C-alpha cells in the first residue's frame, strides 16, 4: 500500500480542467476512484481516468480543493488512498453505450478504452468538452452533444442517447455525469428497456465504507458504489432527489 505518487505529466483538457498523471502501483478497475490530497486542501474523491501502471486523475477546478490540485506541477507529490469502490461491471458480449457528462467523462474513459463501446460526450458548450481525443481513439463511434449547440448535437446527452438508441441496438448504458443527467438517463433506460450502470457522487470522508457519510438510501457510494446497476438504482428513493450534507442532514437537490 503505497500512498504517494510523483506527478509525471499534466495535460490541460479545457479552460477549467487538467489531467494529472503519475505512476501508482496499485491495481485499479474502470470506475474506481482515489482519495487525493496535498497539504493545503481537503482530501477529495477523484475518478481514475487512466488505470494502467501510469494512472491519472482529471480535475475540474470548481472550488478550493480542485483549485489547489490545479496548482501542482510535474515532480510534486500527491497523496492517494485507494483505489476505492466497485467500478463498472464489464462483460464480454454485452453491447454498451457509454455516456459521459461534463467531468463525468473522466470516470468512463477507462471503460471506453477497455470495451471500445460507442460513446456520447455531453457538455454545456464546445469549450467544456473534455477527453474527446482520447475517447475518440478507443470508441467505435463517438458523438457529442452541447446544450447550446456550439458543437455536435444541439441538446442534452439524454436526448442524444434516445436518438442513438433508435438507430442502434444496445444492451446496457454506462454513464457518469451530473446527477440530474443520470436520473433522466436512468428514466430513459427504463422506457427503452435497457440495462444500465451509473456512477454516483456523494460527500465522502473515509472513502473506505466505514463512516456511513456517503449513503444514498442504505448504500455506501464509496464502497457499494460509486457505480450502481439498474436494480440498485431502482430501489433508491434518494437518487436524483436528495443527498446528505457533511453533517449527515438530508438536503433536496436544488
Amino acid at each position, binding site marked *: *500500500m503505497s*500512498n*504517494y505518487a510523483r506527478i509525471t505529466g499534466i495535460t490541460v483538457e479545457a479552460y477549467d480542467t487538467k489531467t494529472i498523471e503519475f505512476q501508482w502501483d496499485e491495481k485499479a478497475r474502470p470506475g474506481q476512484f482515489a*482519495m487525493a*490530497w*496535498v*497539504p493545503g486542501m*481537503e*482530501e*477529495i474523491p477523484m475518478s481514475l481516468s487512466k488505470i494502467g501502471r501510469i494512472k491519472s486523475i482529471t480535475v475540474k477546478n470548481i472550488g478550493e480543493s480542485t483549485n489547489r490540485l490545479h496548482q501542482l506541477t510535474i515532480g510534486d*507529490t500527491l*497523496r492517494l*488512498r485507494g483505489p476505492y469502490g466497485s467500478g463498472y461491471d464489464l462483460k464480454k458480449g454485452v453491447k454498451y453505450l457509454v455516456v459521459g457528462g461534463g467531468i463525468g467523462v473522466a470516470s468512463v474513459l477507462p471503460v471506453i478504452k477497455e470495451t471500445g463501446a460507442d460513446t456520447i460526450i455531453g457538455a454545456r458548450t464546445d469549450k467544456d468538452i473534455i477527453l474527446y481525443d482520447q475517447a475518440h481513439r478507443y470508441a467505435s463511434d463517438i458523438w457529442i452533444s452541447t446544450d447550446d449547440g456550439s458543437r455536435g448535437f444541439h441538446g442534452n446527452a439524454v436526448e442524444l442517447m434516445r436518438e442513438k438508441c433508435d438507430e442502434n441496438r444496445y444492451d446496457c448504458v454506462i454513464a457518469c455525469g451530473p446527477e440530474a443527467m443520470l436520473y433522466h438517463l436512468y428514466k430513459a433506460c427504463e422506457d427503452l428497456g435497457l440495462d444500465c450502470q451509473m456512477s454516483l457522487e456523494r460527500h*465522502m*470522508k*473515509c*472513502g*473506505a*465504507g*466505514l*463512516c*456511513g*457519510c456517503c*449513503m444514498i*438510501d*442504505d448504500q*455506501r457510494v464509496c*464502497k457499494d458504489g460509486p457505480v450502481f446497476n439498474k436494480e440498485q438504482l431502482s430501489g433508491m428513493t434518494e437518487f436524483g432527489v436528495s443527498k*446528505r*450534507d*457533511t*453533517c*449527515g*442532514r*438530508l438536503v433536496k437537490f436544488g
Partner: protein
Amino acid sequence: MTLETSVGRIELERPGMVASGIMGETGPSMARMIASGAGAVVTKSIGAEPKAGYPNPCFTEIKSGYVNAMGLPNPGIELFADEMRIAVAAGPVIGSVYGADADEFAMLAGRMEDYGAAAVELNLSCPHAKGYGMELGTDPEGVKQIVVAVKGAVDIPVWAKLTPNTRSIADIGLAVQEAGGDAVVAINTLKAMVISPEMRKPVLSNKFGGLSGPAVRAVGVRAVYDLYTTVDIPIVGVGGVTDAHDALQYIMAGAAAFQVGSAVAKGGPDVFDEINKGLERFMMDYGYKSISEMIGVANE
C-alpha cells in the same frame, strides 16, 4: 445452541453490535446493518447541534488498522429523530451521545429515550471542553457526575464507553458502577498520529486521530479482562474485532456482547453474518450451548 445474550436488561438475539461511528449516521444505514446480522446498532455519537466534523483528510488506513479524526460529524439531536424512526423500526438501537457537560449528556440521553433507543451509550472519549488535551473519560469524578445526571434523566439502561488512554481503565469502570451505570463499553480508539514524510506533515486535518482496527484488539481484550475483575456490571467489548475468534477473545475476557467497527470497511455489512456463523461453528466444535457459558471464562 443460541447466540442470544443480554447486557443487563437489554436482550440481544446476536451478540455483535455495530460500533458507534460506523454506518450509524442515517436511518437506512442502521436498518441495513441490523438486517445484515448485527444484534443491535449503536448510533453515531450525536450532540446538541449539527456538526460537520473536521475537514478531510479525517481518515487514513495504516498497515494494521485505521486512524481517524472525523470530529464527530452529526446532524444534531433534533434532526436525528427522523433517522431513529427508521432505525428503531428495524431492531434494537443504542443511542450514542456526547455533550459538553453532565446536563447536556442528560438532555441528549432523554431525547434518545424519547426516540425509542434501547439504551444510551455515553461517549466519554471526546476532548473535554474545559481542559485542553485531556479527555473527559480519564477523570473518575467527571465520569461519575455525568453518569449520575444521565441516570436521573432516563429509565433506559445507561452504558458508558471508556477510553483506553488512561493509566487504569478499571478505575473509570468503577466510577461508572458507583454512579449507577448499567454497563461499560470498552474501548474507544487509542490516541494516535500518522505523518507523511513526503508532505512533512500529519496527514489528518486535525493532526491527532484515533487508532482502531486489528492493531488495538489486544489492548481492548486486556481492558475488558481488567474491567471484569473489577466491576460487576456487564461489559461490552469493542476494538479490532474482525472475526469470531476475535469476538470470542472479548467474550471470554468478560464481555457479554461485543461491537464491530473497522471490520465493516473490508468485510462489509456481511461481516456480522460471518462472525455469527463462526461463533456457531466454534460453539458446536467446543461444546458450548450459549454465549453466557463463555463470558469471562478466561478469568478462571
